[in-house]
């Protein structure tokens, strides 16, 4: 039913490449993550080190291959968690009575009103940084947005005639939610998942950039940008490469998801804070 076309193939290619890097990068990397191997800092591209060396003279390519795992894995996990929990809560809320719906919706509004990055900063400052914590923070920050979109879809679908027919047949709420409503909102939800993924990548990169994300000697793509920031004036590949990595990853995911979702209804970009 779903066919990938045009730019979707570019997206698929980019996503596959990053998945492979995330899975096999650490094995393929030529040097240890923390090993200082180059004679000079901010070396040019080519030569012994394909993407040059970083501010301590470590191999950029190896660090990138190790870092992709964190960015891709964490973002994918967090986005999946955010979208899945948001959608389930939305379905539950849409088929429940008015009071439950109101309560859940207002709770989500309250959560939306807390700025995500500040929340993340506070939590990391309080508990210290860990993988699990980062995953949870990102999931919680982006769950209300997913909930909002899924709920508006579910409320609309809930009014459709075929749902009325199912109700008149005497079907239970759970059956209606899973078999009548959910299959018809999967496409827009996929598009939304693509957006969430990108936002999570940016949030985690932002946190890492502030030094609160993945801790050294490991580094995700965001930390790679931050630690090499002093190479900016020299146009060192050490800073350009991870920045490009973030860009290609996010663009690839979006191209892929867009072409997957174009069969379904288009989802309007939720106003992001």
């Amino acid at each position: 039913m779903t066919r990938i076309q045009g730019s979707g193939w570019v997206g698929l290619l980019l996503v596959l490449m990053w998945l492979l890097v995330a899975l096999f990068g650490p094995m393929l990397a030529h040097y240890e993550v923390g090993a200082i191997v180059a004679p000079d800092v901010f070396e040019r591209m080519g030569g012994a080190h394909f993407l040059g060396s970083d501010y301590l003279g470590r191999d950029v390519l190896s660090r990138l291959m190790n870092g992709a795992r964190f960015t891709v894995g964490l973002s994918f996990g967090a986005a999946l968690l955010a979208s899945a929990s948001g959608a389930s809560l939305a379905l539950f809320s849409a088929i429940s009575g008015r009071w439950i719906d109101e309560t859940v919706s207002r709770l989500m509004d309250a959560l939306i009103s807390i700025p995500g990055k500040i929340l993340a900063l506070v939590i990391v400052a309080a508990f210290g940084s860990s993988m699990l914590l980062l995953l949870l923070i990102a999931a919680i920050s982006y769950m209300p947005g997913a909930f909002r979109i899924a709920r508006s879809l579910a409320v609309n679908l809930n009014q459709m005639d075929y749902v009325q027919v199912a109700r008149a047949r005497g079907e239970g709420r759970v059956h209606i939610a899973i078999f009548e409503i959910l299959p018809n909102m999967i496409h827009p939800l996929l598009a939304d998942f693509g957006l969430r993924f990108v936002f999570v990548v940016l949030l985690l990169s932002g946190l890492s950039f502030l030094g609160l994300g993945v801790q050294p000697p490991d580094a995700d793509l965001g930390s790679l940008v931050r630690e090499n920031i002093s190479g900016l004036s020299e146009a060192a590949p050490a800073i350009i490469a991870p920045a490009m990595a973030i860009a290609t990853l996010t663009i690839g995911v979006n191209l892929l998801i867009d072409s997957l979702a174009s069969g379904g209804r288009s989802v309007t970009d939720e106003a992001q804070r």
Partner: protein
Amino acid sequence: MSAVLQVNGLEVSVRGERGERIKIVDNVSFAASKGEVLALIGESGSGKTTIALALMGYARRGCTVSGGEILIGDTDVLALSRAELFGFRGNRVSYVSQSAAAAFNPSKTIMDQVIESAVLHRLSSKTEARAKAIKIFESLALPNPETIGNQYPHQVSGGQLQRLMAAMALMSDPEVLVLDEPTTALDVTTQIEVLRSFKKVVADSGITAVYVSHDLSVVAQMADQIVVLKNGTVREAGATMQVLDAPSDEYTRSLMAAAKSIVRVQPQSLDASDVSPAKPLLELRGVTAGFGKTDRDGMPRFRVLHAVELSLERGSTLGIIGESGCGKSTLARTIAGLHPAAAGSVCLDGETLAPHLSRRTREQLRRVQIVFQNADTALNPAQTVEQVLGRPLAFYHGLSADAARKRIARLLEQVKLPANIAPRRCAELSGGQKQRINLARALAADPDIILCDEVTSALDTVVGAAILDLIAELRRELDVAFVFISHDISAVRSVCDDILVLYAGRTVEIGKRDNFTGGPGHPYTDLLISSVPELRQGWLEETHAKTVAEPNSSLPGNGDLCAFLDRCPVRQVGTCDKTPPPRLTHGNGNEVLCHLGQTKA
């Protein structure tokens, strides 16, 4: 006489999946001279709207006009540049679409929208345009032409809005006016007013009109020439008289057959009703329902149904007819338990059903099935035919996958669909096929009663007639009772034993089908019957259907008085506006809610 509008060998095509060209309009030619009305008639997908839009030099997204020429006067429309089209559209050719409600901007006054194009094209100043608009309102027989323009679109009725849209199109004194199904969305009683005013305006202004419709009876009233289209090609073309009297094409004949009102079912045999005494299968007593907050007596603020009573025998069919907003869909939903009644009771086989379906047993739910109007939205697009039909089988009868497959094959056979349709998705089916699946799903439950809510309204005439045939046949073969809800009296007459006329949520007349052929009954019933266009020229001028066009709001709006009072052409001052109407039994056995029979008798 030279033709104002001439179309030669028009060809419109779309790009197929592999980039190949598919012609959706092929070699269509016709011409109309000044003051003539030319009708394009055909079912949905016949290309009639595509042609109408091409007359404006417009092709919908994905379509291209790939050949032929369109001449309006001496202008070749297809050769115009973008900039030239801007001055041409809405100026020399105007377009009136089917849904006026969707074409008006709800946040601007009507006058601002009517004069917008004239002001935009710098044809006249605002004041001149206003004066002209008021003149056009007058000629379209709109009420209060001076002030109606100050209102917003939601404040006027659907029929008025359709005429206002025509006024918008007429502002620029176009040479050609394209009317695309302008009355399809209207009730018959409203349609007649709109048709009359359109006909008058076209005759007065000497404009050339292209009237697009699927309804042969309506076209017979309006057109001088008819072009019958099917699958983008001209099947037959000629003067209205000739096409109606001596159709040469097979397809035209099938259209005419579908438009004729025929009785598809015989009345119940008498001995059957002798065997089963008294106890009706379904009985409604004093059913009242509505929307909004409930007051102290548990009555909703906006009442839609007022103490509706009806009874339905096993295996018989009751038709419920009325205009949009009269509460007929709410009635079906109330019976099904989707919309709980505020008062009164719904009894199935003598056993009172709970108002809300959550308190009904599964067995009770199984026995009453509802079929919705729009099969596009009534079937889950994510499911296959097999899943749609399989669910009620598993849910009510607990059939195993194997038994279900056999039953599905039987059901598909019953609704005259090929068995190989089962694995297909509902979204891939045609409108008529979807409606058949919609019916089959109700049959899958083995119900005693099927509530059909406007099941033929969204379908083309020919397809709708086939669905009526199917319902009539199912009735004969299975022992199922139908409640057939429609706004189309000929559809109701063709499949029902008894007919109930609903007006403003009240039963105004109920009786045997044969009594609904135009004899005196309730004034509203008479209006309804005489408003259905007949398939012959000149009907529009002859018909005696008349209403007091605009509701007279000075009359007291007492809830107990006759609801039809403000539109009634035969109301009697002193009686009708003073005392509530009695429910009388007329000579033919019909029960009528009106004073009129009383004074005559």
